[in-house]
């Protein structure tokens, strides 16, 4: 059952939460998967795919040599395959740096992966050098190197000379020199390398110095364009709201998206759709700004040298706090627009249409409020809703009587639910659970230091696959001993969706299967709220009490984590789909909790098998499977 559930959740998440290819991101079930790309810079995804492919084939080649050594000893090694390996790994390593310059954290993961491969290859080279064949090779190289020294020096000077005027050609020449360097460097004793490496290193650095700022500037241009495209336009929204409310005020209808005679409630739903698109855009903007920030802070990973500040773009990098302010402004406009729509509709509405309109607005508002900024929405729409109801005094009295007939029960239920939630005070939150399961233990890699009292960002220090192999297993182990975890703010992705999202907090988000309440309970709950097919709730609180459990929206869900996925923070947000943005409550964007580069910052997605679900006013046991 669990296997089926996990598989289903993964499939759903790929479709609902991501623009990314199906194979993306290491999971507890398949840790070997690559990190996804957001592909803002054209060509990033194919480059990542190529490099992950190269990683796989280089890994296979290394394993083959290692197995040969195990079976037949170091004599099974020979110079040519080792030199080719070294060269290929170093070229791929430089490729990973290029990917990072495109703002892709997959580049950082690949950098770590190729680093591990380089280390394993170096161990093989060391074994080879201890063989007779290896010693002969070392002698041969040491004889040839002084003879080539003058030519090498000239080649290096040539690269340096053309670096500023012909950077691409200089880079190609430097690449050639790097390949040559790979053919000898690791095959001679370490203390003798220094005499021959400087011309190679100087050529490399000159070429990188020339190309790197250009690459960063190219990416920056693409990123700035992407930010401009994704930032929602407040002016445009205001213009649209003025237009439709102007129409509503006169006729009670508006033209929306080519459709005429659209009523006020549908206009509000269209507003919510536009709000949501802007909200998703702001999430992408935040991810893109983090990528730019990382750029600015980045040093060349493969050369290990940092570049002078004149090459960095840090002075132009937009502080990511701006996105929070932009999200505040966007939300404020959208919420005020909700109030404006009701007010405009109220002007032309006839008395007999008031009850139906009021109830449909309540229902629309209750739905929109589950997506975030609930308090603000309820506060801002309260007055216009009251004015709308007041247009029909008899109905306004019914609303007021309904409120007093349901308020006490809702208050008792709210207190009882709050008390029930105390049962789980010792239950770990998703974030605490992940933090413990994903910390480093001894030499086994994790995302958090082994012991730390302060909450720290999830940082990738080992390749994503290796990390996930360790923490994925730990999460599964922890799950088999079954400690339930507590997830807050669970929202059904869509009325027809088979899963609900656990909203993003700190560095985790998640999913649970959409569990609605058992029907006998729903029926009883509706009776308590005096609701039937003929009679709808007349307050938002009662609407939430009735619709949230029926819909699968919960304040809290308790249950064990059944699977996990590792994602990069930048990619999660820069590559956010419109539908996936439901994981962040409207009105907010994630904030950075680290001063350092965001390129190695991670997010963990968990899938939870629900045992108990809590709304504001009810605790519900998950139905038996």
């Amino acid at each position, binding site marked *: 059952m669990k296997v089926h559930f996990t598989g289903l959740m993964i499939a759903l998440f790929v479709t609902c939460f991501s623009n990314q290819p199906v194979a993306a991101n290491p999971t507890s079930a398949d840790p070997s998967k690559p990190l996804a790309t957001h592909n803002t810079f054209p060509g990033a995804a194919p480059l990542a795919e190529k490099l992950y492919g190269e990683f796989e084939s280089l890994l296979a080649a290394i394993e083959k040599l290692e197995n040969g050594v195990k079976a037949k000893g170091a004599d099974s090694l020979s110079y040519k395959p080792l030199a080719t390996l070294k060269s290929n790994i170093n070229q791929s390593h430089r490729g990973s740096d290029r990917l990072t310059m495109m703002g892709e954290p997959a580049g950082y993961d690949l950098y770590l992966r190729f680093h591990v491969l380089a280390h394993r290859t170096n161990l093989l080279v060391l074994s080879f050098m201890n063989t007779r064949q290896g010693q002969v090779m070392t002698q041969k190289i040491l004889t040839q190197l002084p003879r080539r020294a003058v030519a090498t020096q000239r080649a290096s000077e040539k690269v340096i000379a053309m670096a500023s005027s012909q950077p691409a050609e200089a880079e190609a020449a430097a690449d050639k020199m790097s390949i040559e360097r790979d053919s000898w460097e690791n095959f001679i004793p370490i203390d003798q390398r220094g005499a021959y490496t400087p011309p190679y290193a100087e050529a490399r650095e000159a070429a990188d110095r020339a190309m790197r700022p250009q690459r960063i500037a190219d990416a920056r241009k693409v990123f700035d364009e992407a930010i401009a495209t994704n930032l929602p336009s407040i002016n445009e929204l205001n213009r649209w709201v003025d237009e439709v409310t102007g129409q509503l005020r006169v006729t009670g209808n508006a033209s929306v998206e080519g459709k005429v005679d659209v009523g006020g409630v549908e206009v509000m739903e269209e507003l919510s759709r536009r709000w949501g698109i802007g909200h998703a855009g702001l999430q992408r903007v935040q991810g893109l700004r983090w990528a730019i920030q990382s750029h600015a802070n980045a040093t060349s990973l493969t050369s290990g040298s940092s570049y002078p500040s004149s090459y960095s773009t840090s002075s132009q990098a937009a502080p990511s706090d701006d996105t929070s302010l932009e999200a505040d402004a966007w939300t404020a406009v959208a919420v005020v627009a909700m109030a404006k729509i009701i007010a405009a509709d109220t002007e032309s509405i006839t008395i007999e249409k008031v009850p139906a309109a009021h109830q449909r607005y309540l229902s629309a508002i209750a739905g929109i409020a589950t997506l975030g900024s609930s308090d603000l929405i309820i506060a801002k729409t309260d007055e216009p809703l009251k004015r709308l109801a007041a247009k029909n005094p008899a109905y306004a009295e019914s609303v007021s009587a309904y409120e007093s007939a349901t308020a006490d029960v809702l208050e008792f239920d709210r207190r009882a639910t709050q008390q029930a939630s105390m049962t789980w005070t010792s239950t770990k939150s998703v974030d605490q659970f992940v933090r413990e399961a994903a910390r480093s233990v001894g030499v086994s890699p994790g995302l958090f230091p082994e012991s730390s009292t302060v909450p720290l960002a999830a940082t990738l220090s080992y390749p994503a696959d290796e990390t996930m192999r360790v923490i994925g297993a730990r999460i599964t182990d922890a799950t088999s001993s079954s400690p339930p975890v507590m997830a807050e703010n669970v929202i059904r992705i869509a009325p027809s969706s088979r899963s609900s999202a656990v909203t993003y907090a700190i560095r985790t988000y998640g999913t649970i299967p959409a569990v609605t309440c058992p029907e006998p*309970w729903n029926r*009883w709950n509706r009776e308590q709220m005096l609701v039937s097919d003929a009679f709808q709730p007349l307050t938002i609180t009662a609407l939430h009490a009735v619709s949230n459990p029926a819909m699968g929206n919960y304040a809290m869900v308790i249950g064990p984590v059944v699977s996990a996925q590792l994602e990069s923070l930048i990619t999660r947000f820069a590559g956010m789909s419109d539908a996936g943005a439901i994981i962040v409550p409207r009105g907010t964007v994630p904030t950075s909790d680290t001063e350092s580069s965001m390129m190695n910052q991670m997010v963990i997605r968990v899938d939870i098998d629900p045992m108990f679900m809590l709304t504001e006013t009810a605790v519900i046991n998950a139905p038996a499977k």
Partner: protein
Amino acid sequence: MPQTPYPWWRYALLLGLFAGCSKEKMDAMVNTVKDQANAIASNPTIAKVLPATGNVQLAMTPPVSTTAAYVKIHKIGDGRPNVVHFTSYEPTGGPNQFPAILVRGITTANEVAELAGKNVAASVYVQTKSGASVYRTRPGDVIEMSISPPVADKNTVAATLPGFTLYDPQGQPMVVSQMTWEAVP
């Protein structure tokens, strides 16, 4: 725990205080209010019909009782059924006086007087102290509440609920062998 009744004129005094009255004005107000209270109390006709504060008694260990109880019919008026609330707290203030007890049921009665002699399928909520566990009937459980016919010279509504069990949010039971109301409409 029974609640100490608070002289109602003190509320008036407090209201005056919030309204920002001067000391002199306040004193005058207090005297007027006191005079009126004394006048009401000394008038035999008014005293006779002056509403009792009502009470609710829970036969259980230890017993729980209140010195006030109210009954109110909420008429929504849009075609849906009416709801009757028997409360140990003032009907408009929410369950904020303790013990806070609510018995709630659907009724066809439009006026409190029409409740007499009727049975109401009720759900029950009890919170004895602020912050104490809330005990409720389980979803789907109903307790049959019998409302007594009116008694001459009495303007409270008497109602009785037979023995029942309520549960707190952790599932702990509270057994009540009987609940009786003398509620002020």
